[in-house]
């Protein structure tokens, strides 16, 4: 059945019937191409979602102080909760086996000046480990260190865009800037994948900010980084214990939702991953639809091909073609065309995806790609079903009596 003679016969029909070949080939190639591109877009969407989160560390629980709404143990409601340095120490003392690090954050906005340039920047008082929480990347110089915290030095690490705003093309390291009336020495310049806003910030030791602000020991937020091996459920449990701990320590009614606020990245991450998965599912569904459409297309074309060839097949049968050889000819031709054009469509689709790279980032599609195995699987499915689709009309054609096929219309 697969002799060279057979193939020669098939190649000839393919060559001599270009329109037919083109039509079926085009349908299949287009089907696979759209499938590959759509599926790749789906993956690109997921990439974008993941990037949103990769900008910051993903093992972070942040605690924000709030105002109580319920009275508790003799305290009235409406009381403003505040965090201070002792809270940091208590967390470190009570939950050491769950934690990677803890850092406070004090957020201010100060007018910042260098020579004639000035601008308002968000200034954050933080501990050295804040670098990991925010995934701050040092471009030059260094980040804040333990000594800065201990000695309450007036050192600052500024964002890439702060340097550009205030210093232009010049190097900011070693220069002194005026931050809200105090002079800080710039020891580092950073970049951040989180976008322009995140690169227009100034980091200073939180102890220094406290000193400047009347030597208090308050902190705005407490950022807790848990050990990643805790996983989602571990993180949720830790969040709960920490919340209980804070509520007890600050005399907040256990049922008060507003005494402290908690943002757990793990939770958001999970939701986002779920959303991404749903998106992927929708896109896969659509892509699957394209494959179905491709199969329907190739079936229609096969019906048309067989109809068009009825007379020829009648002649062949009169000359001694067996039903098997009639089916074989049609089927091999269809499988051959589907295979070649399917692989072609797949390769073009993959080429398109890899050439897109980051050009569609504005549409939330980053680095679209498709697993080769998925692409090949889809192609094989289309080839197999194309074959099945070809088999039915081929079988019917093989059963037509030659006199019927040959009858002059």
């Amino acid at each position, binding site marked *: 059945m697969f002799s060279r003679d057979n193939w020669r016969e098939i190649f000839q029909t393919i060559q*001599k*019937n270009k329109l037919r070949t083109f039509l079926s080939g085009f349908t299949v190639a287009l089907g696979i191409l759209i499938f590959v591109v759509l599926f790749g877009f789906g993956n690109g969407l997921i990439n974008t979602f993941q990037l949103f989160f990769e900008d910051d560390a993903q093992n972070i629980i942040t605690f924000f102080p709030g105002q109580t709404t319920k009275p508790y143990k003799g305290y009235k409601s409406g009381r403003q909760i505040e965090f201070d340095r002792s809270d940091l120490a208590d967390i470190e003392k009570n939950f050491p086996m769950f934690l990677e690090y803890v850092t406070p954050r004090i957020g201010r906005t100060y007018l910042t000046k260098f020579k004639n340039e000035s601008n308002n920047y968000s200034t954050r008082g933080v501990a050295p480990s804040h670098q990991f929480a925010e995934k701050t990347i040092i471009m030059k110089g260094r980040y804040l260190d333990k000594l800065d915290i201990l000695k309450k030095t007036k050192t600052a690490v500024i964002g890439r865009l702060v340097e550009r705003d205030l210093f232009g093309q010049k190097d900011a390291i070693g220069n002194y800037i005026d931050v809200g009336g105090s002079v800080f020495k710039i020891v580092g310049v950073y970049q951040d994948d989180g976008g322009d806003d995140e690169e227009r910030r100034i980091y200073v030791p939180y102890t220094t900010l406290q000193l400047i602000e009347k030597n208090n020991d308050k902190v705005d937020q407490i950022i807790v980084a848990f050990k990643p091996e805790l996983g989602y459920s571990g993180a949720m449990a830790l969040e709960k214990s920490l919340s209980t701990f804070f509520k007890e320590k600050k005399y907040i009614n256990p049922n008060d939702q507003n005494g402290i606020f908690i943002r757990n990245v793990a939770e958001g991450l999970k939701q986002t991953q779920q959303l991404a998965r749903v998106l992927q599912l929708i896109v896969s569904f659509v892509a699957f639809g394209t494959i179905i459409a491709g199969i329907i297309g190739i079936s229609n074309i096969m019906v048309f091909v067989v109809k068009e060839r009825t*007379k020829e097949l009648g002649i*062949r049968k009169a*000359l*001694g073609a067996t039903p098997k*050889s009639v089916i074989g000819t049609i089927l091999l031709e269809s499988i051959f065309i589907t295979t070649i054009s399917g692989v072609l469509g797949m390769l073009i689709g993959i080429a398109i995806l890899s050439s897109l790279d980051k050009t569609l980032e504005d549409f939330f599609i980053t680095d679209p790609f498709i697993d080769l195995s998925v692409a090949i699987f889809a192609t094989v499915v289309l080839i197999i079903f194309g074959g099945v689709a070809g088999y039915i009309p081929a079988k019917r054609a093989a059963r037509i009596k*030659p006199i019927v096929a*040959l009858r002059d219309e």
Partner: protein
Amino acid sequence: MIQIKDLHKSYKMGKNSLHVLKGINFNVEEGELVAIMGSSGSGKSTLLNILGMLDELDEGTYTLDGVAIKNLNETKAAQYRNKFLGFIFQSFNLINYKSAAENVALPLYYQKVARKERQEKALKYLTQVGLKEWANHLPSELSGGQKQRVAIARAMAAEPKVLLADEPTGALDSTTSYEVMDLIQKINDQGNTILIVTHEPDIADMCKRIVHLKDGVIIEDKKIEQVRASKYV
């Protein structure tokens, strides 16, 4: 070569059934050249199609070269057609995207003859019908007479026991018809058995025997003195 006994054939059309052949008895010896005549609708083509295994009989027996043709499945029928029979049609029925030589070689392809030998044989038979120079031309580049000669070469290529021709000259003018008949006579001279359906008396006169069909029965079956077509060519 051919024995037919009490052959009946009817076509069902909805509730009605049209009795086309009503008991045909008829033998053909090897080397005969038979014309089947009769008015339109008398069942000539039907008879030829049954002889050619393109259609099935309802009643009666048909023996071809000692083989009873009965209850054949499609595959067997295809093999017998290929081995025993060559067809020549009124409308030529060449495959339009194949060259003359490829058309002639096609039955040999289904006989699983090797490619090289196929090409040689195709050329040999094209030479016999005087179309050696046209071997690589497509049917669309040939005249009607040339097409029919290609079809004759194709029918002969498989070296069948019997050649069946349904109005082979029906689509041709008289000069071309005589050329084709000349060719058929020459093939017959070599000992081939040939049956021709025609309603042109002059064509029938070029055969050796005329069978007359009317309303599904043979009303006349006579041997005649053959008129040679070469006289007119």
